[in-house]
């Protein structure tokens, strides 16, 4: 940075000076390194779930007419159980080595059409089912039902 006061007579000492940016750059380098190390570049999201003991729903003034329970089993097979005013068991076996997402959507849409007041689903899984599989199903369910309750306990 050059600063010249002008004057033009030129008799006194020169007032030109260079701002020393090196220490500022040093500070910036240290700060950026520290922030890059401590920064987390993961974009974190949240899946909401409530507690639903198997066979029960959360405390409500008016309980839903039908309790919908989804149980994830071994080998990507799942079962939809209806209790309350309706009682039914729908088995959805694996399709192409994965959960039958299309079948699950279809069945839940049908239940929703028949029982519009039923607005929650209780999801539980077999003991050895990995958390990732539960999350996959929850991801699908959150598009179909407003409330997901985790059960089995």
């Amino acid at each position: 940075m050059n600063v010249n006061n002008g004057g033009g007579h030129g008799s006194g000492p020169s007032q030109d000076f260079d701002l020393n940016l090196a220490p500022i750059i040093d500070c910036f380098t240290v700060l950026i390194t520290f922030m890059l190390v401590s920064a987390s570049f993961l974009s974190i999201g949240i899946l909401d779930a409530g507690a639903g003991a198997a066979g029960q729903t959360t405390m409500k003034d008016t309980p839903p007419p039908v309790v919908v329970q989804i149980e994830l089993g071994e080998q990507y097979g799942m079962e939809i159980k209806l209790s309350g005013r309706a009682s039914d068991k729908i088995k959805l076996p694996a399709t192409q080595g994965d959960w039958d997402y299309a079948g699950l959507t279809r069945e839940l849409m049908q239940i929703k059409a028949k029982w519009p007041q039923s607005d929650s689903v209780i999801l539980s899984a077999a003991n050895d089912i990995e958390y990732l599989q539960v999350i996959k199903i929850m991801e699908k369910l959150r598009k179909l039902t407003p409330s997901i309750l985790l059960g089995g306990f």
Partner: protein
Amino acid sequence: MSKFYGKKTRVSSEMALQITSMADIFTIILVFLLKSFAMSPVNISPPSGMMIPEAQAGALNKEALKLEITQNGVQVESKPVLVLKNFRFAPGEILGNLSSQSLNTALEKEHKRQELISKSNLDVKVDSKILIIADKKVPYVTVKSVLASAALNGFTDFKLVVVQKE
């Protein structure tokens, strides 16, 4: 040819590195990093080696009690509470109601702490939210026990932490 090789151009021995533009770049990077720090309301730093599942999920907007389930243990607010053996509880750890003894103690302590704070500060309320940060390989039997312990101690609003899918 003599035009190129005949004359030697004199190079000044004093060479000043132009660092003004570098300072500008560093300032922009610093501002960007500070902004991204300020924008995240909750600071979640999963333990090394933990694989959080990916899913399309809602945004994380409020601080809550953090519970982490890794291959070797369960941590509440980054404090180790109990040891797991390959994602599973030790045989004597689980009670009849499927909850974990050690986890119950830790969560009860947290709940009491929240109650004490809410008594002295009316603006603070006891929060039923709990952030569950679990490895994708955790079996449901372990998740079930953790959730049972949480629910038993008043933490019934489970917030399952996932990595946002692109």
